[in-house]
């Protein structure tokens, strides 16, 4: 069975990028009831546009309605679910029973259970399946062996996180942010207090001068586990990161798309090929989470948490003029004549070219570009499709 590759989308541009670079479905947060309050969440009209775009490609869009609702959140829920229904979403990702029941009462939209419920066993899976859940996003605390065992004891669809941020706590159970920052982690306000700086103390005083005790975990990266997860019959593979950049979405989706397709075709490449693809994104330091079994110090974020990408992301192509041979894009990083650029078109192999001509926002020819967010252009020797990623080869 070919698993679904499910990607995050923080806005319509990233939604299109995710789907064009190989995601089978995207998940988005709406204006309400979604756990990433600081993401540039979609309006209902945006969601409808995203659905139309996804469906034109034969793909799907899921809407997250995965906060833990308090009493104040209940009025308006029905109207919101009906609006999602009218927008045509393919599933709702819920964690609260009230969302499940109201979605089933008011609509025929399938409901997926969010990882916020931290399902770790086939017993819990059966409970939720009986309650009407059609797919369960498993807890991120499971080993491959546990996932296999659970999958063997249930026939509900299972979804597994394969890449991105990890919570320090079992998801949905954490109230550090509530307690220390008055921000409700389970209603979209997580302050990421687990990534703050702590030190270990006893009643007699601190054990260290440094605040180097890590609650925060390295991000998840599961390349070498993908074949086994496919063979375990997992329905969908989820990439985390609705707050992440277009470059991250494109690079991560493209990598896992290739890997899944290669495995199913029996043409797996050396692991370094996939690692090189992932390295094009601004990934934090990553590890394999719980998949190999209990975690250890190597899974924790002691010290710096960011890997630097090998190539500077320049932007993505917004238009290509065949007459002038110029590709337009919004500049993210400096570029000068003579630099070498990698162009990575959606669904095609990347290629590199030397920069021969650059054009500033007013169309004048320049020797370098350095002002971020300006709409600039570069001469490219062949056609580039919209959303082609441009990265400087360092």
């Amino acid at each position: 069975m070919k698993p679904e590759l499910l990607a995050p989308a923080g806005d319509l541009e990233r939604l299109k990028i995710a789907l064009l670079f190989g995601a089978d479905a995207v998940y988005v947060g709406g204006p309400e009831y979604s756990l990433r309050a600081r993401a540039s969440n979609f309006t209902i009209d945006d969601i409808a546009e995203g659905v139309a775009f996804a469906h034109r490609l034969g793909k799907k869009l899921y809407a997250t309605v995965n906060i833990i609702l308090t009493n104040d959140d209940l009025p308006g829920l029905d109207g919101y679910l009906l609006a999602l229904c009218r927008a045509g979403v393919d599933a709702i990702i819920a964690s609260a029973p009230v969302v499940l029941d109201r979605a089933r009462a008011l609509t025929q939209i399938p409901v997926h259970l969010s990882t916020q419920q931290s399902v770790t066993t086939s017993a819990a899976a059966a409970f939720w399946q009986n309650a009407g859940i059609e797919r369960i996003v498993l807890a991120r605390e499971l080993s491959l062996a546990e996932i296999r065992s659970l999958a063997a004891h249930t026939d509900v669809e299972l979804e597994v996180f394969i890449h991105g941020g990890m919570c320090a706590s079992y998801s949905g159970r954490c109230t550090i942010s509530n307690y220390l920052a008055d921000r409700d982690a389970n209603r979209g306000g997580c302050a990421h207090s687990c990534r703050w700086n702590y030190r270990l103390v006893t009643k007699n005083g601190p054990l260290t001068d440094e605040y180097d005790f890590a609650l925060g975990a390295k991000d998840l990266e599961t390349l070498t586990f993908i074949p086994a997860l496919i063979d375990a019959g997992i329905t969908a593979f989820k990439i985390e990161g609705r707050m992440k950049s277009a470059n991250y979405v494109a690079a991560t989706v493209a990598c896992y798309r290739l890997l899944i397709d290669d495995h199913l075709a029996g043409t797996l490449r050396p692991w370094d090929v996939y690692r090189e693809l992932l390295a094009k994104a601004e990934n934090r330091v990553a590890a394999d989470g719980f998949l190999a079994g209990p975690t250890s110090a190597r899974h924790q974020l002691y010290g710096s948490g960011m890997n630097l990408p090998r190539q500077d992301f320049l932007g993505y192509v917004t238009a290509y003029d065949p007459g002038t041979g110029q590709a337009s894009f919004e500049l993210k990083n400096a570029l000068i004549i003579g630099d070498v650029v990698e162009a990575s078109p959606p669904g095609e192999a990347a290629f590199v070219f030397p920069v021969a001509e650059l054009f500033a926002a007013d169309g004048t020819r320049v020797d370098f570009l350095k002002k971020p967010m300006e709409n600039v252009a570069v001469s490219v020797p062949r056609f580039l499709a919209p959303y082609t990623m441009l990265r400087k080869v360092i």
Partner: protein
Amino acid sequence: MRIVATLDRIDELARLQTAGADALMVSVIGFSAAARTVFLPAELTDVLAAATERDMPVYIDISSPIHEAMLPDLECQMIRWANAGAEAFVCSDLSAVAVAIRLGLADQTIYQPGTFNANLYAPWFYKRQGLRGITVSREITLEDVVAIAVNHEGIEISFIGHGHLPMFHSRRRFLSDYREYRGADFVWPSGSMDLFLEERERPGRRFPIVEDATGTLLFRDRRLQSFDEAAILAPYIADFFVSRRFIADDEYDAALGVYAGRGEAKTFLDRYGASYDSGFHYRKTGLSKEGDGR
């Protein structure tokens, strides 16, 4: 409203009852998280017999996250506990609730996830599953707790109103990991119950941290007290849990006494009040905090 106290030793059963406890929560080996003491199966049989003599119901603390390999043993133990006379199973993980339902023990099961049960709908949903009760979330306001407790029917509502409450539960072994990270030369203190975390921007505030077989739990720095609030909730809730972690016996007994109407809140707070707060009773958390620059 039953006052549910944690039992650490069988010989203190009478003392807890005298202090004000109506029911007992007991931790069990393999299925209770961050417990001060756990009872072996044979010991639990003795506890159940002794509690029955005193007409004190015994609740089994199933606060461990449940993983697939634990299911067969959990099933066996739940049958054993039920047959031995346990009054209720207090389950943090829905897996345990699901096992109880499968075993026909739903009417003895209280779902106490810590979070999740945060709105008026939760009781209706779990009533439909046949559960005995649910414990409301620990991070919602008193106003919300009251609204949930008042507007339910056919399912018991309970509340954790006192004690040193956890802020999170991780499967990771943070203390072991840190020890590994620091290396062999790092001087490690003895006594795992005496460790705390201190955050750089909050000097002096100490958050207890405990690692056990279930992972790591991090606790609030202040203990919750609900002396005034318990009186408001009493007509509507079935069980009022008084958590015991990190609390000395005399302080614990005094707290039970206040909730049972046998002691004065002022006397208690004059003596112990510096380490207590009112939790989220009057703190409504939101999506952002003015001035929080993180």
